[in-house]
């Protein structure tokens, strides 16, 4: 495989990681803790889309070799992930009176409950969308790039969602309030923002993006109950690289880490004999180096808290 081919795969994988990273960063900065259930929220979204697609099926027309029904199922996945997150916030996190570390530990329990329920419902095996696999796009093979229309659909959808997040944060009332709250929750509350409601919206946004990422994970490869957890560390690495709590940092960090993971096999060409299995390990090493050298990440503003969207 050529370098450009690895890079093309990296872009596709990065698109998924970016969606997960943005959500994790939003929840980190607004809810105030490292949410270990974020990966399993992706799994929830993925399985919800899987079920929805099974129910509504093809729906005639196709876009990028994907039936329109898939995009409807994607929306269902987003909605279900957001709803599950809201329910979790209401019955689990909100009544808790403990610090961010207690919330972090609780979120591990939440992650296990999500994963266990999915495994009870769907078994431990692989589930795939009933969409035929595609051959790489002919026109691009000439340039040495082998991507399928599905890969292209993932990238385009991710770009649309990321632009949507940008518009939401910069140009809407909700976005301004979220940024204010991420910056300084006490000040935001004092100036009349209903911080509680903003927190719920941040769960909707963060979990919704995670749900989309989960559906794409299912399209990219296959769904298993561990699919979200297996990318959680990569997402954490991306968020830390970008600067915890920074959404734009998470976009950049997600892109870079996704590329690195997919391009790991290239290392064996320069004499470091490690295979693709070590992709997450390389991401982890980068994360530790970032934590040592620049704990505020790329987009961090120098304050160790790393606050601000």
């Amino acid at each position, binding site marked *: 495989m050529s370098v450009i081919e690895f890079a093309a795969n990296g872009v596709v994988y990065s698109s998924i990681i970016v969606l997960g990273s943005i959500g994790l960063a939003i929840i980190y900065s607004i809810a105030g803790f*490292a949410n270990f259930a974020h990966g399993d929220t992706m799994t929830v979204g993925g399985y919800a889309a899987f079920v929805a697609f099974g129910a509504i099926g093809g729906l005639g027309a196709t876009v990028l070799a994907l039936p329109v029904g898939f995009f409807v199922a994607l929306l269902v996945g987003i909605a279900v992930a957001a709803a599950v997150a809201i329910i979790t916030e209401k019955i689990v996190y909100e009544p808790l009176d403990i610090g961010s570390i207690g919330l972090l530990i609780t979120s*591990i329990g939440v992650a296990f409950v999500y994963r266990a329920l999915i495994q009870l419902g769907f078994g431990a095996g692989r589930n795939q969308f009933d969409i035929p696999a595609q051959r790489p796009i002919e026109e691009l093979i000439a340039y040495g790039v082998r991507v399928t229309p599905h890969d292209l659909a993932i990238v385009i959808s991710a770009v649309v969602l990321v632009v949507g997040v940008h518009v939401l944060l910069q140009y809407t009332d909700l976005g301004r309030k979220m940024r204010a709250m991420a910056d300084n929750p006490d000040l935001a509350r004092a100036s009349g923002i209903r911080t509680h409601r903003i927190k719920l919206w941040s769960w909707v946004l963060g979990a919704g993006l995670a749900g989309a990422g989960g559906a794409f994970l299912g399209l990219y490869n296959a769904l298993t109950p561990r699919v979200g957890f297996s990318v959680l560390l990569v997402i954490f690495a991306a968020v830390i690289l970008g600067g915890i709590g920074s959404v734009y940092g998470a976009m950049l960090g997600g892109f870079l880490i996704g590329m690195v993971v997919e391009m790991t096999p290239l290392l064996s060409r320069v004499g470091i004999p490690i295979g693709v299995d070590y992709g997450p390990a390389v991401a*982890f090493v980068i994360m530790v180096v970032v934590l040592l050298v620049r704990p505020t990440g790329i987009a961090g503003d120098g304050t160790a808290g790393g606050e601000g969207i």
Partner: protein
Amino acid sequence: MTDRFDVGAYWSNLTNAEKRLTMAMSVLVFGLVIALLTGALGASYFLFLFGLGGMYALLSLGLNSQWGFTGLINFSVAAFFGIGAYGAALMTGSNSPIAGGFNPIFGLAIGLVLAAIVAVAIGIPTLRLRADYLAIATLGLAEVLRLVLQNERQWTNGSAGIRGIPSFFDGWPLLGEFPQWMPGLEIAIVPGSPVILGTPFWRQLLNVTLLLGFLGAAFLILRRAQRSPWGRLQRTIRADEDLAKALGKNTYSYKMQAFVLGSLIMALAGVFYAHLNLFVNPGDLDPITTFYVWVAVILGGSGSNRGALLGGFVVVAIREGSRFANDISWLPLDAAPLRLLMIGLLIILVMRFRPQGILPPQRELIWPSAIGREAPSRPDRGVPQSNGGETDE
């Protein structure tokens, strides 16, 4: 005047939680004795379970000295457990790709030395980090170690694992032959269903002896350490690290000491596991192992060594008890997700309703003799130091 051996006074000295727990444990022990005597529960299987419970208790003690006392969020329990288990297995196992066939004592030493080296190597970059960064970094470390064990077949046999591990006392002058020359016993208390104690029973009994040795040593060392000035400083770091720094303490160095100490105890549990199970594979390093131990510690009460012991056995009850879900045919449930569900719910419920755990630390923080028997301020009943806070009863 309460006397140490006065049962009534001892009982009234216990907190309500301790009283209820003591009663529950008595019922449980009584039930177990009945089950053993009637043959409903095989004696050697019971000892195996007891060994497993003690192993989790040992892991919990290790985590407790990191999280419970110093406040270090270590999510790489499974990694240090794995280092101990693989250290022992690679030295003694019959299909070990590296050495194999050495005396288990050698495996024990290698496991502990490796754990200490890895703990220092991990501690150097991560112990300076904020609490939640430490959590993420240690979880990452554990995954990397699992990936290495799974992929580097030339050193670890990969996912095939290592077999042919001898039991710990094999080759010892007297104990090595002990299970073979002990006679088979047949105890018939309930007519018709005699309890038979054969070689497997004596082998498990040896394992339990080894475990009790490990557990007792760890428990005593930790109790001694935690009641000393060193332990008080660790608790200060947990409560307010800046304060400890302001007092002129090198908190980084103290955190490192606690991290290495806890990791050594976890590795000890791993060594025991290798000789109990006689087979190790990378699956033993699954992150779920880490979270079992976390459940044990927060359920028992962070910072409470008695709580860690209790938590260890509760976790094994969940782990092994859920196997029986497969036997209940009318419930279409699989054991693995059921176990995961119970662990998850337990974490959420404990954090919600009893974040201090079942047995929060009380007496263990101070030498009993440090409280003067004739101290004028001593209350009539209750434990002098921290009983007053029990308002949730």
